[in-house]
């Protein structure tokens, strides 16, 4: 019986077996853990993820009473210095325990940042890969469209978009996605341009796989690794930018929402007299960004084919 190209293409066993993929992941992890700085990054990021998950499921485990709202004490609204063990980070305006506030805020900021980066990366990758694969007229139009978005520096642009959408966390997130996707579009475009010349893409085309089939099954899976590294590097930046947006005045209508930028903004007027009110929320952002950058750098090195021999 003659086996057609299409049959080979459809056969399940042409896919990488699970055990081989697991071996790949294990190798990545091994290379990652060989470097102390990447290990530190991984530990920091896992710790933040753990805080976020616990805060979402059993907040009382990390001593948080109310994970969804700050608990104000208007009788004692002036910040008080840290006291162990009742207020390890002190209190901030209006009489909120800063430790609990920061713990819940980590969950909120992490969630929004992850959403922004993933949505931006997904949209950008599809547009970039599509433009690169189809080429010609479509390529020109899509990439010029992408360039338009890159003609304004991202923060002023995000401010303008968020201003139009209105002050709310969801709108800030949407604004940041609108600002962020073109970066991924450019990046995926560059990757896909060289990938589409590969023999396996040609083979898939010859066997009658449609454009979208090739894009989603053959091109995108192969740009995912570099995109994933970029996501891990960007997450640290997006956490900063998201909190910056809420800090400069886009905080939601709810002043009791735990969010790091809002916490810094709430404490702003007390910053000199009670430095801890801005110190702890800022340190929470700083450490996460450092951890994410260390992990991202480590991942980039670990996934570099030159380091995997």
């Amino acid at each position, binding site marked *: 019986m003659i086996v057609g190209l299409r049959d080979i293409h459809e056969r399940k066993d042409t896919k990488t077996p699970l055990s081989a993929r697991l071996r790949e992941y294990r190798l990545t992890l091994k290379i990652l853990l060989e470097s102390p700085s990447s290990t530190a990054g991984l530990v920091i990021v896992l710790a933040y993820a753990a805080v976020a998950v616990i805060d979402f499921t059993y907040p009382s485990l990390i001593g948080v009473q109310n994970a969804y709202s700050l608990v104000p004490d208007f009788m004692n609204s002036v910040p008080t210095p840290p006291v162990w063990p009742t207020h390890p980070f002190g209190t901030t305006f209006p009489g909120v325990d800063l430790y609990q506030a920061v713990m819940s805020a980590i969950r909120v900021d992490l969630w929004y940042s992850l959403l922004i980066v993933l949505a931006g990366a997904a949209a950008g990758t599809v547009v970039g890969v599509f433009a690169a694969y189809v080429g010609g007229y479509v390529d020109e139009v899509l990439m010029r469209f992408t360039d338009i978005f890159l003609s304004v520096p991202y923060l002023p642009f995000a401010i303008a978009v968020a201003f139009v959408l209105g002050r709310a966390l969801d709108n800030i997130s949407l604004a940041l996605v609108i600002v962020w996707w073109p970066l991924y579009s450019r990046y995926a475009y560059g990757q896909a341009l060289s990938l589409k010349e590969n023999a396996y893409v040609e083979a898939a085309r010859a066997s009658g796989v449609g454009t979208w089939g090739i894009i989603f099954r053959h091109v995108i899976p192969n740009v995912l690794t570099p995109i994933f590294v970029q996501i891990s590097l960007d997450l640290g930046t997006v956490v900063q930018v998201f909190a910056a947006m809420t800090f*400069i005045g886009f905080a939601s209508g709810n002043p009791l929402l735990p969010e790091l930028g809002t916490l810094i903004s709430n404490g702003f007027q007390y910053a000199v007299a009670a430095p801890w009110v801005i110190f702890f929320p800022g340190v929470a952002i700083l450490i996460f960004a450092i951890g994410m950058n260390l992990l991202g750098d480590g991942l980039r090195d670990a996934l570099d084919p030159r380091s995997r021999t």
Partner: protein
Amino acid sequence: MKLRYYIARRLILLIPTLLGLTLIIFTVSHVGGNQRLLGEYINTHSKIPVSVQEQLLAERFHLNDPLVVQYFYWLAAFVQGNWGYTQTSIYSGTVLDAIKLFFPNTLILAVLASILTGLIGIPLGVWSAVRKDSVLDQTTRVVSFVGYSVPLYWLALLLIIVFSTSDVCSCLSILPIGGTATVSLIGGVDWYSGGISNPTHVLLIDSVIHGRFDILEDALMHLVLPVVTLTYGVMASVLRVMRSSMQDTLSQDYIRTARAKGLDEKTVINVHARRNALIPVATLLGYTIAWLLGGVVLVESVFNYLGIGYWTTQAILNGDVGGIMGATVIFGLTFIFANLAVDIAYGFLDPRIRH
């Protein structure tokens, strides 16, 4: 390709970019609907009902036409410099006038930070790569790592806290922690009012024109903290790329050749390696400028430094479309032209780029 063809090509490419920018501005200012656009033209004390006023204004400003037609009306006005009005707690008037007043201050801040970034970041990156794994290299790496992880507005706040506590050391209170000039010093001066100096609107230059060197010194002191914060934030990425690029360059064959033929290490590093290592840094510049202009907004708003960034945050708080639009225009234009300058300089430095 000759350099002048390269420049001409780059200038032609500017046209779609600028049109793209106007599309963004148009969309941003019109998405909010007519009510938002007309807010500043409505007279609520008039006997004519607000709805009638709105209708008349919409007619006059062609707001009932299809969006495409509106865009061309808007573009015509925009090109003629009619950028609408802004009303915030720091300035009321036309957007163009506000930009003329605030932009010089922002430019000074950005230019000083860029110069410092180049002067410190590049040599330090080179040095760090040459003395790889030395104490200096390790320190530089940690400092730069923290630099691009730290939220700039938070760093600015920390500096304010440090420089406003005189109980640790009175030496700390010499640096002013906000504003552009000391009120008591600038109070009675007739060429300065409401935070704006005349005639150039740049306090550094105006104080020299009027021969007030005490005010010049004061203005410089006010620039120290904002410039330091901004420089630190921007320098981190330059330092990092310079270091890794210098390291790559130093392992190239032509460097080995240069060493083998007996050139001294200084010539090898300064003449053969550094120039080539600068190329990746130049590609990074566009991104750095974007980062710088974003940083300007945050730094200005924390230090109450009267520039475009401070105006932007005031516009957010006051719900002022004109201010947001004006700031987007000016940041966009600065970004586009800075990138143009970088590209031309790049084509000049590296002949390969022109092809």
